[in-house]
């Protein structure tokens, strides 16, 4: 059993009339990389800042280890944050920026120096120390901001969309470095982002947030294949959502009726009663697409291609089937199916996820 490092219990926070955090509870394991993921305005940054101590929760509790944190002022928390705009102090050199926190702690000079060398070593910014923040590039600023946090050997590392100001290529490089560094240093890290690809690539755990609530908290795989609701399903990755009705449960799995087409789902969703309205979540890459030739196939839906994009490794098709638009990704395509081609969409029974229906638009 992993140890819980950060525990957030029933936290609420409002700004004026606007409730930004609505009964949020969360346990973050020691040494994990946890991401708060959600659209803008979902409360993820507020939650992060509440953990940092910039905001005090209106109600609820925050524990770090066994310490009750609500009453600890932000400067005594050692939950160090890397800001979205890096917040490098423009009036200090890079070295002064990085060592700022240790100097505030009045750490002896030789120790500061030792830590400084180690930290800039990790990040490869040793040659920048004499410069001013305005004189270095965005990617370098990002590393400096990270160095300024890491040198503190924080109990908790808080990252507020730290990659959002970088260009795409740099973002992917730094993302990988960040993950390696975190795994090496084993610092419990909380990462805030609205980029689901980033979240999937980096995280041990992801908490998907929406409208001030955590809607799903789990591993990337859990979130991807077994999302808790249609919001999570469609926020993470691309998904086809289809309305259906449970017909029966058999040894093979759960049977679903979609507009008189019977589909097998090779997972047992026995909590769903027969006749229950359901939503089928089907990921585009789990669907096979074949030219319609004669008989209807098992677990297949007829339709026709409306459009496609060739993306190199994949072709993405838009297929009209059951009066709705499907997205299908085909890897290593042998041929290109032009629009209006009649096709079958073959669904893998073990890759269909069912959600209780009724509320989905």
């Amino acid at each position: 059993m992993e140890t819980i490092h950060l525990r957030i219990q029933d936290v609420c926070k409002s700004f004026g009339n606007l409730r930004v955090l609505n009964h949020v509870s969360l346990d973050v394991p020691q040494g994990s990389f946890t991401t708060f993921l959600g659209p803008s305005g979902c409360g993820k940054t507020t939650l992060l800042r509440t953990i940092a101590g910039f905001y005090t929760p209106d109600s609820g509790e925050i524990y770090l280890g066994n310490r009750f944190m609500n009453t600890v002022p932000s400067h005594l928390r050692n939950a160090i944050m890397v800001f979205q705009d890096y917040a490098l102090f423009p009036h200090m050199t890079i070295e002064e920026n990085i060592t700022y926190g240790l100097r505030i702690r009045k750490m002896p000079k030789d120790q500061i120096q030792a830590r400084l060398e180690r930290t800039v070593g990790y990040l490869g910014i040793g040659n920048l120390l004499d410069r001013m923040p305005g004189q270095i590039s965005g990617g370098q600023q990002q590393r400096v901001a990270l160095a300024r946090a890491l040198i503190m050997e924080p109990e908790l590392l808080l990252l507020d969309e730290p990659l959002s100001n970088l260009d795409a290529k740099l973002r992917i490089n730094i993302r990988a470095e960040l993950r390696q560094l975190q795994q090496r240093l084993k610092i419990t890290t909380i990462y805030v982002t609205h980029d689901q690809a980033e979240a999937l690539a980096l995280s041990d755990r992801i908490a998907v947030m929406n409208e001030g609530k955590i809607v799903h908290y789990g591993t990337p795989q859990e979130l991807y294949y077994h999302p808790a609701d249609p919001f999570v399903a469609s926020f993470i990755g691309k998904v086809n959502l289809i309305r259906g009705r449970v017909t029966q449960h058999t040894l093979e799995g759960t049977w679903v009726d979609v507009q008189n087409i019977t589909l097998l789902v090779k997972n047992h969703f026995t909590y769903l009663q027969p006749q229950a309205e359901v939503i089928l979540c089907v990921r585009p890459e789990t669907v096979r697409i074949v030219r319609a030739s004669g008989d209807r196939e098992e677990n297949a839906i007829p339709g026709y291609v409306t459009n496609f994009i060739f993306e190199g490794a994949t072709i993405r098709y838009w297929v009209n089937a059951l009066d709705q638009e499907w997205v299908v990704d085909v890897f290593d395509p042998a041929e290109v199916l032009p629009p209006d081609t009649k096709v079958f969409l073959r669904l893998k029974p073990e890759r269909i996820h069912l959600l209780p229906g009724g509320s989905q638009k």
Partner: protein
Amino acid sequence: MSTRVREPVLFLVIGVLIASLMVFVVYPSIQVFLYPSGTDFIKILMNPRYQRSILNSLYIVVLSTLSATFLGFIYAYAITRTDIPFRKFFKGISLLPLFSPPFMVAFSYIMLFGKNGLITSKLLGLQVNIFGWHGLWFAQTVAFLPVASLVMEGVLQSIPPSLEYAGRNLGASGFTLFRTITFPLARPGVAGAALLVAIQVLADFGNPIMISGDFSVVATEAWMRVEGWADIAGAAVLSLLLLVPSFLIFLFQRYWVSRRSYVTITGKITQIDIQKTGTWIRWVLFLICFSLSLLIILVYLALFMGAFVEGWGFNWTPTLRYVQEILSRSPELTNSLLFSIFAGAGSAVFSITAAYIVSRKRFFGRRFIDFTCILPAALPGIFLGLGYSISYTKPPFDLYGTAAIVVLALMFWNIAMGYQTGIGVFQQISPSLSEAASNLGAGSLRIFREIEIPLIKGPFFSAFIVSFIRAITTLSVVVFIVTQKNVVTTFSIMNLVSDGFYGKAAALTCTLLIIAFGLLGITKLVLGKNVVLFKV
């Protein structure tokens, strides 16, 4: 040359700008400069009295600037960064000293803090002599506190909040945070505010003429050369003496301090969670703000009392007759209001246009416009007044006795502030905004109306208000150019004071204050938000 072909309107505007600056700033300045002879310069410079007053001026400028900036910073900090009560009220009160017509506000200090003063003598039983450097220091500190405080409020508000969050996050708190993050970031702005205060203290003659006693400063000496000895050459030399340091200060502020500013997004007011201030700090700040506000209120209250009692300072029987008399004869109030509105609007249009063109275009004469637009900030009022009196009472620019001469003098005296604000704003507005609009199919008129005007509105109104306030409260600029036909209120106040009508003078000053404040209120209502009045 290519400009003329490609953009005839732009060429025309640049022509008008350069011509106006030549005619209305450079020409009168040169006239004053050429008036005294070499012997006049030597006579003034060798006279120990004026050597002393130069030192006195520098001394009082340093003292007042330090204290006004220090208290102004505390004031601004308390208003923007703490949760002390009555912050809005404190802010409102701190605007009052911006409106200081000559004589009567200073007289109010004597009334309160003199030997026979209501507070010093009647309340505290002290025998204090307010006259001298200490009284002047006191009055100038209060008078220029609002300028300093307004500038620094803007500076503090434009520090990105994440920097302070970051500092706190890394373990700094309270005074350590202030010392290592907040103050160093605000420092260039503080320096800018201090220099702005210094220029104004240097040129101010209203307070020293009433309360400096035997402590003579250059601005009053220049004034008295004319009033006491009809010696224009001496006044010109002395005001040139003022011009030198104030212009140096201005250049220093412009080219050194502003370069060191860390503030990138000025004027943007960011929501920052006000942190709970330590209890005793909170009370100290509150006490300072409270005392300063109380002081300001008392000074202006004393002034209002002067308008409503029989004999200010010796007969406290209430009366309405002074106010009635003032209201029954008011051509000068109308003149003051109209001239100042015109001068304010003219100054705003001129300075914002100049700022727009200088920051957006490259052309021959650009540096000239830039330099000449900031020059008036350093010109003492008496200097410009003399220049206009010499230059525009004869052909080819014969504006004697007209509204035009007063409006033009007030207008060009005030272009520097608006120009500075304008330059600051245009440097931050990306030209791509209007390019984007044009790209989306908006025509020139539409771009101007929908993109440029909303962006210019802020700096325009702040330029207008600052010019208006300075225009309606100045005496030194107008005293050499008004006649009975274009007389303004400050001139009448001076005459009432010399005739011993202190009650009437107080009533007239109050009326002027109410008008000025009313206009500020209307502007605020029209804009629906705070106008950034001073920016460095």
